[in-house]
């Protein structure tokens, strides 16, 4: 969901750590260990935590070059499909390349834009 002061993007649930969390919660729910509502709360917490961590704790930078395959901008969300991507990490100049990457990117602007 859009940010709204207390709300955070659910975007990062698609990351590997988010996926792991989701799977775990899923297991717990199916085993009747927790309530689905609790799981939702946990996920909401995750949304907040990862956003804060990425914002405050992470300092690394990277640059990348690529060929753009498709792009889309809808609902303030950019989606790019890139081909032949080369990432350059700032720390140590590590270079990683891959033939395909998809970028899903929400607006960094605060909720004002959405509201």
């Amino acid at each position, binding site marked *: 969901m859009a940010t709204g002061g207390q709300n955070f993007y659910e975007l990062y649930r698609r990351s590997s750590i988010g996926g792991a969390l989701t799977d775990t919660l899923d297991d717990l729910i199916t085993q009747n260990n927790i309530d689905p509502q609790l799981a939702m709360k946990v996920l909401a917490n995750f949304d907040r935590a990862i956003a804060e961590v990425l914002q405050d704790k992470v300092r690394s930078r990277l640059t990348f070059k690529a060929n753009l395959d498709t792009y*889309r901008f809808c*609902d303030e969300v950019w989606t790019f*499909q890139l081909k032949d991507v080369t990432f350059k990490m700032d720390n140590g100049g590590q270079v990683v390349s891959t033939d395909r990457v*998809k970028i899903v990117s929400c607006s960094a602007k605060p909720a004002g834009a959405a509201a």
Partner: protein
Amino acid sequence: MSAGPSGGDVRIKTEPTVKIEPGLEGNPAPTPHPQPVAVQGESNNSNAHQRAIAQLQIQYGDRAAASINKLREQPSGGVAQPHNQQRMANPAIPQSYPGQYQNSPQQQYRQTVPHNPAAQQQQQQQQQQRAALINAQRPAPSHVDGAYESDDNVGILVQQARDGKTTEIGRIEIDNMLHAQIAARARAMEGGGLMLPLKRTNKGKAMSYHKSGANTRPSQFDGPDDDIKDEEGVENDEDAINSDLDDPDDNVEENEDDEEGGQIMLCMYDKVQRVKNKWKCVLKDGVLNINGKDYVFHKANGEFECVAVLARCLRPVDEENCFQLVYCDNGIGNGTGKINGGIDGVTAKRRGEPTEPALYWRLLGVVDREKYLRSGRGNGGLVAMQIHFSVRLLLACGAECAVHKKWKTQFRNDQAEWSSGPTIVPECELSMKAEEYTTHDALDEYGLIQFWCKQWVKVN
């Protein structure tokens, strides 16, 4: 009665109703259901009389007022008489009011294919539906003369099976019937396939687009490909125009990175800029998963180029520096014209000019390079957006493009400087309104443009 027929003519009007109804209404099978008007018992007559009046009302509305009055004057039991009389008296001109048919296409249609059982059945359904929708309180037309009717069924559409069993038809079935009917007509009119919603013609693509959008923010769509499954049968036509564009390989490729969950970057954007086909973006707070590893970053700068060469399909068309724009007409317009005859809803200088909306492009399979897409406008009132899409796409691909003067007013972004010459159109921001998407499914169009571009590149 605008046609102003005399009293004798008025009776004619009863004829199509009374005469045709039994065959049409009774049964899907060509053999008419036993619902003869004349056989009705004495006790039934007054009821049948009333229903005949109601039926007239349903079918012809006000225009039947005279008929109805006439009927009311007649003693019950006399219904069949004028009908016979008339048939003998005027065998050649049983239905001779042009005015009558102007507002009653169904009736007209019925006349042109009176002996086609399938058509009759369709007509029957349509008529039932129409009647049921118009006035749920009235008996469905099929009951007018029917021997099986019961008053309990008033207001519900009832289908009579061959064996005389009646089944209630629910709203959904009615909808389905309507839909099938409309689809059949559209196909007949368009030569098959042209009027399929774009959403369905490249469903795989649409699906992947939905998917990527839906996970992050509430989507504007009701859900991914709602009716695709239902429609599968309709479009499983080998000869369908779009079949070669529905290349399943493409979709597999598209979906891959979605499915495996890897090779994805989730982040926020600060800035996304494009100059010609060069993109620059400033991203932040991201998680990047590639090659099985996760990377996080606080800030990332990305530069990429759009590699599609759409410009190749942009050749100057003709005089006036009228450059081509490519946009998708999603076919919501009437699409009445012949392909080469200028299509309704397309801005051509005159009809008959070879204008080719996107649908036609699809028809061509983007192979015939002598034909190109001229810019056009749909009649959905979303021209601006469509052209915006096109312009942005073309620019992104490094193509030079311009917007013809006459479309200037169609644009909502007045800051942009438009010209009729082949100049670069300045960046124009799309105004993406939710309602535009929902009504027009423009996102799918957008996806389709890209899709086509790729196809084009492939073909070349």
